[in-house]
């Protein structure tokens, strides 16, 4: 097996395992569009990375955190409907990123790679990022698991019972920003949300507890990565979209399994 293929497989599965539990929350909390917004803002993060000569992943994370904070504040003030606020931030930051990049004429970069991912170009340091960063995010998620579930079920009830709702929400949004930056490598910013929600939606059918859904989503995501990579080698198709299609196929297959 080729080295780059192995790296892609290991990195991709690492991302899928982390995306499963987070994706479950994205589904439960109806945050699919929020994931999209974070992913789109990554373009601005990349532009800032080039502008400031910093690591691009760091740029993506920093801008993602700012966007998450802005959203949190906008939602608290409730002047705009949530999806409108998301749409504004999402497309304004994507456009600003593209325009900034256009100004930097001396920079050569692979736009398609950022849009649809370049999993076959995953490097050793990427893998360290994925397992170190992703593992840390997963650990923090587990630490906040119970209050997050309580908030997801009923925010006011959780607050009356003494959960520090604002703090838990902020931590979760920040973790999401980090995860999205990792996921960009695999499926690109256009397809990030799919890796959150499609495996989680497949897992829902077989899960009876929140935890089993989170784990199953991670496994289904890993299968999708492996299957998609294999297909992309076999038929020479783009890897990111092949992974997304593979997870969609698994979702369709799961509908054939009779409900318990």
């Amino acid at each position, binding site marked *: 097996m080729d080295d780059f293929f192995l790296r892609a497989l290991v990195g991709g599965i690492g991302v899928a395992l982390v995306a499963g539990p987070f994706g479950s929350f994205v589904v*439960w909390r109806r945050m699919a569009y929020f994931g999209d917004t974070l992913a789109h803002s990554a373009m601005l993060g990349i532009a800032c990375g080039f502008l400031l000569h910093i690591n691009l992943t760091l740029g993506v994370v920093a801008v993602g955190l700012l966007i998450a904070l802005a959203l949190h504040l906008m939602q608290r003030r409730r002047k705009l409907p949530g999806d409108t606020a998301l749409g504004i931030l999402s497309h304004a930051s994507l456009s600003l990123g593209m325009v900034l990049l256009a100004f930097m004429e001396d920079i050569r970069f692979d736009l398609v790679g950022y849009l649809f991912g370049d999993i076959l170009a995953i490097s050793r340091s990427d893998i360290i990022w994925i397992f170190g960063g992703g593992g840390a995010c997963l650990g923090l998620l587990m630490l906040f698991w119970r209050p997050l579930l*309580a908030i997801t*079920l009923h925010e*006011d009830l959780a607050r*009356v019972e003494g959960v520090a709702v604002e703090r838990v929400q902020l931590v979760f949004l920040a973790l999401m920003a980090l995860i999205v930056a990792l996921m960009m490598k695999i499926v690109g910013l256009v397809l990030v949300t799919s890796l959150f929600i499609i495996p989680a939606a497949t897992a829902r059918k077989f899960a009876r507890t929140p935890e089993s*859904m989170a784990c199953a989503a991670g496994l289904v995501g890993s299968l999708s990565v492996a299957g998609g990579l294999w297909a992309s080698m076999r038929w020479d198709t783009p890897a990111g979209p092949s992974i997304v299609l593979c997870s969609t196929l698994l979702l369709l297959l799961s509908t054939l399994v009779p409900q318990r």
Partner: protein
Amino acid sequence: MSQHPLVTARNIDLKLQHKPVLQGVELTIHPGEIVTLIGPNGAGKTTFLRVILGLQKPDRGEVVRPADLCVGYMPQRMPLDMAFPISVKRFLLLADKAHQRDILPVLAEVGAEALFEAPLQTLSGGEFQRVLLARALLRDPNLLVLDEPVQGVDVHGQVEIFKLLTRIRETRGCAILMVSHDLHLVMASTDRVICLNRHICCTGNPESVTRNPEFLKMFGAAAVQNLAIYSHDQEHRHEQCHHGDHS
């Protein structure tokens, strides 16, 4: 039991979107009493509960909550996503400080022990209200705050739930503050009624309130006529809780 009030709200004013919702509202709840907030839609009942619970800050006035206050809260609606796989047992374990061993007794107390393993999504309206009540009781509160506890429950089930509340007060000695816009069933199971329509229209025990001209103006004389019949009739109903008091 301590004799100081559990909660005192003084002179609460609140505007939401520049519209006055509460004006000079006062409330004191003593240990062990059942107080019912009643009033038309949009009268600010739920908002006032939120102020009492500390979920909403009033523009003016203050809410005094002593340190020994422990509130069990039963929200009005629980928008439950079909995508969230969770059993009744697990839902109850999410309550603050809940222990595994407390779950079955508290479910039995609300007459829902058969639902222990049931997925939350499969519950009927009445079953869901009982489970929510169980969750509120798990904190062993000295004040239960219930926002329309019989919403989505049929009339028979409503009678059962009000009886259950009366029993809970007797066995646990906790105070109950609830919101209802159903006149009939509330009257038999409350010590004190507060008619709220942005301000407090009238307040007192159920009998005196139903004779109050403000109350008659709000609900109409015809509606009040039926009350006496209801509060008697209720005694003759048999207490039973079967698996599905469907709404």
